[in-house]
């Protein structure tokens, strides 16, 4: 391809596209090395119990086994975790879910590793387990964490604005419903993995599939008692993550292994089943809603109780719930709200971050309530949403004033004006025999950034290399969302260089600077803002130093052009290679920090949240889905999908659409087929034959409309778009099902079996 300047606003192909399509990109999993050792984990296999003994003698006797380690061998605190450090690297006294690691083996090859793992004798005295939030909340419930002061309640929190209880009683109309969403799996294709080794100076290098290399360093240091400067984390492009690699997976285990290999490289790569068993999940949630409105459809009051099953360890459970609670009322004006949340420890697999972080769950409930209300009032569901949609200047249901771009109304209007909506009645009528058609809509939103209590910061670094090229040192991972390409566009735009002259360094704690996790739809926003400032400084330096060479007494005539700086008046040029040769290494590097702005309201609620509440910036979307239901089987076929998305300005239409499409596809899986099925904490569908993620035949043709606004705090006016699309499909499809068949499903996924059962249940009298 001919070189081009990767400008802002253009559908620039991915910076990483060519290497990935060639099979040349090295993901963490593609790192092996000479004389490689393999590490693996023996897992508890018991959901709750006290460890009596872990006998490693037989395993150690096999030749080819380098080390067998248990909880006793872990230096440091042996506790990992992001906010609460409650998860052992290797279980020491208790096991709290079946996937708990009880022993770590390092061996010469995988066959030896497998054999040694099977020879470890693990004796665990089983304890009664808790597998539902109701069980966990009983007064006599067994405790998952004996020492946790609130028993099995990791976090109980309240968000209150106005007086919801009293207001509900005064409403013209009042509806009540309970919704259930299951745990689901991220199902990234590259499972959790990494490779680690100790260098001669004692430093441990870890190449790992991670969303948060800098936080990993801190987490490993804490758990293993290693000084931070002994750790170097390298985070290549990820083969998908979606939240599931935000926090320690293989990190502490691999660094611990590397302490025992005498400098040899050691690799750990979870297989699909292990990824299901030990990896993080999206929280299962029970959502109890009470909504009151005036007879004209104006929303008045909301009371909800949300119960998040966070599994055996805290991970980001409290923060996931906080975000869910902040979004529990939808993108609407409701003056009186009371939102209560319980984040509950159970002996289920660990729940944590996943795209739409707590929000995908509540979206099902608040949009389900809107459809129920519309039905009850006989109001068009789109009209009801338009009537109540948040506008800039309103307070949202957490009591935060919407001071920034707030485009949900525009999204709804875009759906309303689209032929799919305008012509829906005719389309529905054309259903064939034994088929019913329905059209559903959903209005959703998703906050950006970490929220209050934690600086959402990035440190951008950009260099004019000795060779006269531009090198961006990205400290924030690209798990596929495309932030790296946005960084190339920013540098290309400001420095006017061709894409072939711009290099990217992916996160490496020794080459790049701390820029937070690849999470919260924040990567392009936060790092991008920092990078703009760094690139502008570099541009000033490049023209400024050129002025010295060309003896220009003003910078006004100096312009950066591909590969050179030119004096537009005299026509004289200095190649960047010459400029680089003249500048000192220090002078060729620019660094800038950006911290995301925060909410100005002083809220007297949500005090239980240490971090992550409330948020200033939101992206919005309105989704429309057309489905066809097979009356004989209950199967739902998604026929067409439309998403109108407001995420500020679009920096790259192709990348924007990629995020929207991908989120819709994951959302369709969430709506129709995905559910981690558990029996007493054991996952019964830990593979892609039984845990069904959508394939190419399951996803319809999608139309993505960008409803652009300008977000003044964003880089070139953008906001993050990675998550918001995840929140629409489940409620939209449930709404379409109600439209098609008159059944309001409150338990997802909407499998054929469930739909058929609902269709054959006579409506209550």
């Amino acid at each position, binding site marked *: 391809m001919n070189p081009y300047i990767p400008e802002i606003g253009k559908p620039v192909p991915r910076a990483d596209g060519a290497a*990935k399509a060639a099979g040349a990109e090295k993901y963490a999993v593609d790192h092996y090395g000479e004389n490689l050792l393999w590490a693996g984990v023996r897992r508890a296999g018991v959901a709750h119990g006290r460890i009596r003994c872990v006998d490693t003698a037989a395993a150690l006797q096999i030749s080819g086994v380098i080390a067998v380690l248990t909880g006793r061998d872990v230096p440091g605190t042996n506790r990992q975790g992001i906010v609460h450090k409650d998860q052992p690297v290797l279980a020491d006294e208790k096991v709290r879910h079946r996937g708990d690691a009880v022993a770590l083996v390092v061996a010469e*090859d995988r066959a030896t590793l497998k054999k040694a793992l099977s020879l470890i004798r693990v004796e665990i005295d089983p304890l009664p387990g808790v597998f539902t939030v109701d069980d966990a909340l009983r007064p006599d419930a067994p405790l998952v964490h004996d020492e946790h002061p609130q028993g099995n309640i990791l976090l109980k929190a309240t968000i209150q604005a106005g007086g919801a209880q009293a207001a509900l009683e005064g409403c013209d109309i009042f509806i009540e419903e309970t919704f259930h969403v299951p745990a689901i799996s991220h199902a990234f*294709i590259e499972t959790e993995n990494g490779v680690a080794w100790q260098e001669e100076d004692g430093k441990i290098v870890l190449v790992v599939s991670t969303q948060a290399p800098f936080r990993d360093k801190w987490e490993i240091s804490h758990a293993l008692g290693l000084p931070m400067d002994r750790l170097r984390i390298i985070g290549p492009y990820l083969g998908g993550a979606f939240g599931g690699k935000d926090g320690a997976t293989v990190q502490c285990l691999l660094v611990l292994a590397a302490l025992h290999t005498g400098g040899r490289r050691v690799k750990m790569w979870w297989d699909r089943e292990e990824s299901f068993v030990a990896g993080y999940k999206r929280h299962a949630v029970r959502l109890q809603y009470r909504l009151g409105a005036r007879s004209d459809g104006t929303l008045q009051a909301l009371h909800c109780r949300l119960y998040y099953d966070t599994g055996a360890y805290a991970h980001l459970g409290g923060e996931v719930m906080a975000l869910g609670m902040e979004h529990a009322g939808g993108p609407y004006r409701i003056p009186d709200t009371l939102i209560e949340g319980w984040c509950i420890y159970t002996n289920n697999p660990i729940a944590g971050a996943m795209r739409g972080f707590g929000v995908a769950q509540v979206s099902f409930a608040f949009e389900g309530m809107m459809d129920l209300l519309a039905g009850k009032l006989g109001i068009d569901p789109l009209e009801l949403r338009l009537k109540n949609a948040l506008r800039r200047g309103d307070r949202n249901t957490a009591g935060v004033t919407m001071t920034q771009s707030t485009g949900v109304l525009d999204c709804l209007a875009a759906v309303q004006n689209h032929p799919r909506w305008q012509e829906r009645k005719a389309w529905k009528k054309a259903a064939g025999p034994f088929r019913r058609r329905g059209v559903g809509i959903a209005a959703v939103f998703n906050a950006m950034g970490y929220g209050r209590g934690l600086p959402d910061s990035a440190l951008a670094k950009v260099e004019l290399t000795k060779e006269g090229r531009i090198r961006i040192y990205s400290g924030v991972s690209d798990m596929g969302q495309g932030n790296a390409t946005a960084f190339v566009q920013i540098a290309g735009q400001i420095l006017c260089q061709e894409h072939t002259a711009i290099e990217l360094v992916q996160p490496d704690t020794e080459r790049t600077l701390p820029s937070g996790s690849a999470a919260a739809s924040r990567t392009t926003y936060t790092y991008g803002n920092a990078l703009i400032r760094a690139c502008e400084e570099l541009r000033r330096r490049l023209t400024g130093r050129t002025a010295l060479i060309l003896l220009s007494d003003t910078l006004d005539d100096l312009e950066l052009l591909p590969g050179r700086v030119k004096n537009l008046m005299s026509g004289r040029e200095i190649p960047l290679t010459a400029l680089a040769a003249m500048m000192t290494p220090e002078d060729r590097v620019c660094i800038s920090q950006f911290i995301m702005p925060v909410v100005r309201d002083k809220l007297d609620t949500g005090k239980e949240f240490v971090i992550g509440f409330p948020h200033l910036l939101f992206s919005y979307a309105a989704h429309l889905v057309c489905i066809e239901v097979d009356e004989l089987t209950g199967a739902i076929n998604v026929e067409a999908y439309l998403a109108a998305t407001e995420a500020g300005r679009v920096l790259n239409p192709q990348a924007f659409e990629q995020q929207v499409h991908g989120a819709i*596809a994951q959302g369709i899986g969430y709506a129709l087929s995905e559910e981690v099925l558990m029996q007493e904490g054991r996952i019964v569908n830990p593979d892609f034959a039984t845990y069904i993620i959508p*394939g190419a035949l399951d996803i319809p043709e999608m139309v993505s409309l960008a409803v652009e606004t300008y977000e003044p705090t964003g880089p070139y006016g953008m906001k993050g778009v990675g998550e918001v699309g995840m929140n629409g499909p489940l409620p939209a499809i449930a709404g379409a099902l109600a439209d098609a068949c008159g059944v309001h499903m409150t338990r997802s996924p909407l499998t054929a079996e469930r739909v058929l059962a609902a269709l054959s249940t006579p409506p209550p009298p």
Partner: protein
Amino acid sequence: MGVSPLRGNDKTEYLPCGEEEHRVTSPSKGEARRGRGFYDGWYYSGLIMKLYFTLNGKKTTLDVAPDRRVIDVLREDCGLTGTKEGCGAGECGACTILVDGESRLSCLMLAAQLAGRQITTIEGMAGKDRPHPLQDAFIQHGAVQCGFCTPGMILSASALLSRNPRPTRADIRAGLSGNLCRCTGYQKIVDAVEAAVRREEESA
């Protein structure tokens, strides 16, 4: 020959298929020489097989335990890490390779099944100085996000086009239905395959 680079598996046009022999020695030999001999258990029984096959247009000889998985042989012995593993059970398609031009799952194949075959991995798709038209279309049409499914997707698309040179969008979806992608929602992948077909037709 007139073999379409989209359809054919004949790489003679742009992969010099060789006079020079491409020899891969499995790591087990080195291990064995050092007296260790750990090789997924096979060194002990002495079952090392010499395989002759064509890999990305190059004649290749490989000393390998015949029951090792092809994906491991490709990635570890041959260094061809473009072939990805996503499930190890034939469910996700990430490990798709071409065996005599047909798509096969390398996580379900054993090394002995390589013998005498023409094997194409993602590394063998590109021409000398330019990507394969499918690779180019994937890049241009936004079909690559995290990219982990991409190699398998491209090889499956290539096998599809050799069976059906003018597929409809529905045909493309069906042809790629064995390859899971968690990032893209598939639409841009279908766009890319369509674009490659169009380009092929225009240049024909």
